[in-house]
């Protein structure tokens, strides 16, 4: 029963992009536009460069450690205490992310299509699927992601190209947005939108070809960035930062604008089907990450055995009554700063210290 499946390069890229797609489906691109207004184009260029530099640093630092993720590296650096601290932080982070995603997406589904059903049934639908996927293992999640991700990329590009006709010079100017300070300084916090970097810390031990780790990270980053940029640009064609209307799901509103001639209308209903699939796959992956973390912390032989308990916890968390403003506050503020702290401070500091320790030990060995 021990899950020894190693994911191939293509599967790994699709899984990382899947993480990005889920944040695009929920409101991350709108949060970028909301903060910096029409300066979003300049802002995403800046955060793209900043995040890419950070990604390169992280990849180079992790590359020195054979078959280790951040959890293993923290164990190597600070022993079981540090490993447990980072592990618990991971579990809390993953549960926060997954429960908010689940609640938010189920709310969207409930509002759009299933208003007659209690939201608890929609949540249960996901929980059952996630349990089955995790019981089968990472291979089912990665195979599903490989199938679904190209279709979703196409759906996002369709949205981009069909909303492009609404984009005029008025939508993207003044090019530096509200003011220079907002675009260049405050806007740096939008770096959280490339949050897939968090998962780069954990992907290496899962890879079949670990020597391709750097390549996989860069390719998936570039594709994710293109998807983010195209969604943000589409967003500019519809919303203005000064508008008082804050959409619950901006990508859905964008896709409602698409019309392929007189015959193909309401293409958003096909997209919703794809997004349900993406969310299902994404949540399965997060539960897998939680299981893997618990396995490493408590030396459990088979992580599949804790699937039902971790899914039950997720179900319980998603039943916590949260209103729209609380969800938005968690997604836009708490989540933003946790991701930034994790990528730019905790992760990098741990990696630098671990590398210093490794170098010191190597030098001692030589002596």
């Amino acid at each position, binding site marked *: 029963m021990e899950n020894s499946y190693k994911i191939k390069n293509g599967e790994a890229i699709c899984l990382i992009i899947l993480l990005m797609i889920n944040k695009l489906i929920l409101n991350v691109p709108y949060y970028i536009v909301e903060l910096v207004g*029409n300066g979003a184009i300049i802002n995403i260029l800046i955060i793209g460069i900043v995040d890419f530099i950070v990604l390169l640093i992280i990849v180079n630092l992790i590359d020195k450690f054979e078959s280790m993720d951040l959890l293993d590296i923290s164990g190597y650096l600070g022993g079981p205490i540090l490993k447990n601290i980072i592990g618990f932080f991971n579990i809390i982070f993953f549960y926060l992310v997954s429960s908010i995603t689940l609640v938010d997406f189920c709310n969207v589904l409930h509002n759009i299509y299933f208003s007659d059903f209690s939201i608890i049934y929609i949540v249960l639908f996901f929980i*059952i699927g996630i349990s089955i996927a995790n019981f089968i293992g990472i291979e089912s999640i990665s195979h599903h992601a490989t199938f679904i991700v190209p279709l979703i990329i196409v759906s996002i590009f369709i949205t981009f190209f069909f909303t492009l006709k609404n984009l005029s010079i008025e939508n993207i100017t003044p090019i530096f947005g509200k003011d220079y300070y907002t675009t260049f300084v405050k806007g740096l916090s939008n770096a959280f939108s490339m949050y897939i970097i968090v998962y780069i810390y954990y992907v290496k031990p899962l890879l079949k070809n670990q020597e391709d780790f750097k390549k996989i990270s860069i390719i998936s980053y570039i594709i994710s960035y293109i998807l983010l940029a195209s969604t943000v640009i589409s967003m500019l064609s519809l919303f203005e930062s000064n*508008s008082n209307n804050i959409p619950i799901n901006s990508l859905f509103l964008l896709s409602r604008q698409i019309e392929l001639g007189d015959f193909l209308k309401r293409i958003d209903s096909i997209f919703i089907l794809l997004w349900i699939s993406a969310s299902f796959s994404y949540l399965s992956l997060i539960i897998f990450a939680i299981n893997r973390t618990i396995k490493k912390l408590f030396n459990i032989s088979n992580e599949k055995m804790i699937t039902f308990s971790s899914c039950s916890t997720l179900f319980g968390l998603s039943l916590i009554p949260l209103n729209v403003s609380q969800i938005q506050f968690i997604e836009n503020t708490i989540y933003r700063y946790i991701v930034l702290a994790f990528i730019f401070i905790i992760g990098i500091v741990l990696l630098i210290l671990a590398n210093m320790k490794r170098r010191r030990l190597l030098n001692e060995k030589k002596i």
Partner: protein
Amino acid sequence: MKKKFRLLTVILIIIISIISGNTNVNGIDKYYFVIAIALDKSDDNNLLKLSVQIPSNSSNNSKEGDSSQSSNSKIYSVEGRSINECITILNNYLSKKINLSHCSALVISEELSKEGIRSYFNTFNNNSELRHSCQILISSEKALTVLENVSTSGEVFSSRLYDYLTTSVNYTAYTEKSTFGTIFKSLNNNYNDLSAIYTLVSDNIVQTSGIAVFKNDKMVGVIDANNSMSNSIVSNTLNTCVITINNPFEEQSKVDLNISLYKKTKIDIDILHGKPLIKIDVFPEGTILSSGQSFDFTDNNNIKKVQDSVNLYLTNNIKEYLYKITKEYNSDIVGFKGIYKSKFLTEKDFEHVHWDEIFQDSVYEVSVNTLITSSQLFNKE
């Protein structure tokens, strides 16, 4: 592997048995699909009057050879304090749920539009059923009368008539295209005011005629059909239209031309002595359709004379339109604000201009450069 398969089978059987045979399933027989909605103010109080046009079964009076889409329609009206309350009353009255996913037109009365339409659009936007391609019409009379006249128009499928009402803009330019999507976009930006199709109701006939002009979300006036062409030219949406000008060769006679744009209209804005100076260069291309009893377009000078006449006619028409929206209505439906804003690097810099305060003082310089390319089938009588 067998164990996994068994577990999966059990789970699937449980899920299928829960989902299938559910008496709560909503089939299409439980819905009324709305063709069009009309919004009015009620006659004797401050309530909202919502009317819906619903196709009715045509089996009783269908003729042989009717289209499979042919249908009659019924109109139901209710009064309430809000759109959702009206829909709830209708749902209760009709014993079926109102569904807006096939709604092809939303008609709002001029009276109601003058009080502001934002809240109605926000309500409809929260309804995922309504398509963004749904036509928006502002009615000169009660919106309900538009629905009634369309119902009795003789068109077998009423929703088509709403499409016909608005597709004529492609060859007449007597109005503009306005859908739920375009109005939603205008309401969500602050660089242009919104405008919508204006319909005239008279003698049991509905026809689109001009543009309803809004300031913020309140209707402030109407641009007539003749000036609507200028709106299409300035906003670069002109497909083709016919104009009639005085014949430069014969007094008391007219020349008809088919006009389109061979180049996009150029707009340049500067602030001069605290007033916006808006320079507009228009590039129409004309085809002569009819030109009186004697004509000779083999002579280049004659072509030039017609071009000058067209230039003068269009310049006057465009200026009349621009000063009307600026001085009379103070409404920026073209989006000059957005054009000027694009010259600035940040919104903070643009705020110093105080555009909204100076817009009404705008001065226009219009330059029309017409090109007559053809005289159709004959060059000389």
